[in-house]
């Protein structure tokens, strides 16, 4: 299981540049293994980035594989809420 520390890519996930970097990192990780996304030290994520990163992953993997292969760790309730919104956006 690969662990990706999101704050090493960006503490503030607020624009398409950092959003794309995170998406690509997760994609690369999924090509080898399942991934755990560690959200410790992440300040904020915009609704735009939540959808930009996670909606395509859900569409590519399907719900079952998404839940099996992408785990979320140290996530604040606010960011969890936003990602859920992004998945359903």
């Amino acid at each position, binding site marked *: 299981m690969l662990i990706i520390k999101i704050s090493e890519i960006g*503490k*503030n996930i*607020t*624009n*398409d*540049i950092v*959003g794309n970097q995170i998406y690509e990192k997760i994609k690369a990780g999924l090509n080898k293994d399942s991934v*755990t996304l560690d959200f410790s030290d992440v*300040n*904020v994520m*915009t*609704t*735009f*980035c939540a*959808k*930009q990163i*996670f*909606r395509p992953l*859900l569409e590519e993997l399907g*719900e079952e594989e*998404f*839940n099996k292969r*992408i*785990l*979320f*760790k*140290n*996530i*604040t*309730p*606010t*960011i*969890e*809420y*936003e*990602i*859920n*919104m*992004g*998945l*359903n*956006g």
Partner: protein
Amino acid sequence: MSGIQIPEKFFQTEIRDFLGKTEFIFKRNTTYIANFTLDLSHIKEISILGMLVIYKFIAYTVKNKIFRHPTLNWGVTSSVKSLFNEYGFTPLIDNFVNYKNKTKITESYKALKSSSTEELFCAPHSMLRTEANRNELEQDFLNKIAEFYDTTRNSIVNLCTSELMLNFWSHATIDTDSIIVAKGGKTYFNLFLIDNGDGLITSLKENPIYRGETDKDLLKAVFEEGISSKPNTNHQGRGLFLVRELVKLNEGELVVFTEGLQYKLKDGKINVSEAPYWKGVVMTVKLKLKRPRDITHLKESKIRYRIRSIC
């Protein structure tokens, strides 16, 4: 000789009057207006938003060459200039008084640093689209906010700030046009944004399905969930909605002047009314943070997929 005199006290009510006196700059024909004076010498008390609209008025009229030989009257003492200097506006205004090129203005923004003591202050900053500027904004705003507030307050304040930054980036037509300033304490946070971009109504009309609506209905709709000028993109139409909901949850106030209308949310009530014309957006967000309530207090709607969170 024409001109505008700023009153002794220059707060939200007076700003509306000021916008009424200045709306002619957006309707002018091609001829210069001669001998205009902006008189700041009577100011005794002024809000940050007051300084921001005065600065933006000066910046817009200089850039667009509205006046021939205009005069800016600071008064004979340095007291008014000191008020503006306290919040970093004097060098910005001075740059336009000695307006030569865009580079110098950009450098002036970069020279301003945010200060954080008992209170949080994020100095006026332009919102350029360059990666370097975005990084600076994150440092001067989002990281400062995160250092200043606890987790819950940070999640409220930084979400509002970053969603609004993103929104202004998306409708600003000229990069140096958008300015953001913030001031906060442990139990409050105030955010001010201003630009001369497309405005919220014009932006929403980019989406053809909204073109038949009245401007008042559109401005009210801008803050509703799922309303976006950019359908079929990663814009969900949730950014401004979340800002509005966070203002409601935290008994705050949201005031917007844009394109001849005012949107006001106060005490949980929304009112959209006629207002002086401002090209672009003037926005104030005030949050009370004594008993902070983040977005998890909102009812989630239309949820089908949910992530699996571990520890």
